[in-house]
């Protein structure tokens, strides 16, 4: 596809450009706005048919903890949204193993199915991304 193309083909090329986006979540929910803001951007990105991965590391793994109940603190519990991501074709969720271990958590404690990666595997995943957005 090196030769220049006409308008219509060009448009097809443009719409076919898929980049690898990774959203890195390293903060606990509710204490700061980062987790909720990340989720907002992730949902927006779903509208653009990109290759989206979500990464949870450090306190970010707490975003996926089962059983969040925010009624008493008067905040919106956005954790059910992670379960809805599948419906937006966002199915690549990765969690760093040592972050889980350090917090006494296992994949069974999380509200969604995730792929658990060790630090080296996480490094490789980050390296292959076109765009990395940190929250």
């Amino acid at each position, binding site marked *: 596809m090196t030769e220049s193309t006409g308008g219509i083909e060009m448009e097809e090329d443009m719409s076919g450009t898929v980049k690898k986006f990774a959203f890195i979540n390293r903060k606990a929910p509710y204490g700061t706005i980062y987790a909720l803001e990340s989720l907002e951007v992730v949902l927006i990105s779903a509208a653009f048919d990109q290759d989206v991965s979500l990464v949870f*590391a450090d306190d970010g793994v707490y975003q996926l903890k089962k059983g969040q109940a925010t009624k008493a603190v008067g905040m919106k519990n956005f954790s059910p949204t992670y379960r809805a991501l599948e419906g937006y074709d966002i199915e690549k969720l990765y969690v760093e193993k040592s972050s889980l271990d350090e917090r006494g958590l296992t994949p069974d404690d999380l509200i969604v199915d995730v792929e658990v990666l060790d*630090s080296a595997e*996480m490094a490789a995943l980050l*390296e292959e991304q076109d765009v990395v957005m*940190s929250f």
Partner: protein
Amino acid sequence: MLHIVNKSPLERNALESALRMVKPGSTILLIEDAVYAVTKGNKVEGTVKEAMKTCTVSALWPDLEARGMQDTVIDGVKQVDYSGFVDLVADNSSVMSWL
């Protein structure tokens, strides 16, 4: 890939996490309060030296100077100015900020 850290290693775990998840051969740029990490005698000096065996560690010297730490930088740390910062961003295919 370029990894940017801007938090003091004694206040936050950003540097520690970055070093755990960088691929060998990467560049790590320390700016703002993260520049304390490349100063002699800091608790993480050994960790930084270990990282320097596989990665390039750079620090933004205007931030070192602002903090009066310009004369205590660990040997081998590459010091860059703002234009060097721009070059690093331009020369790497992707950038990750460890907020």
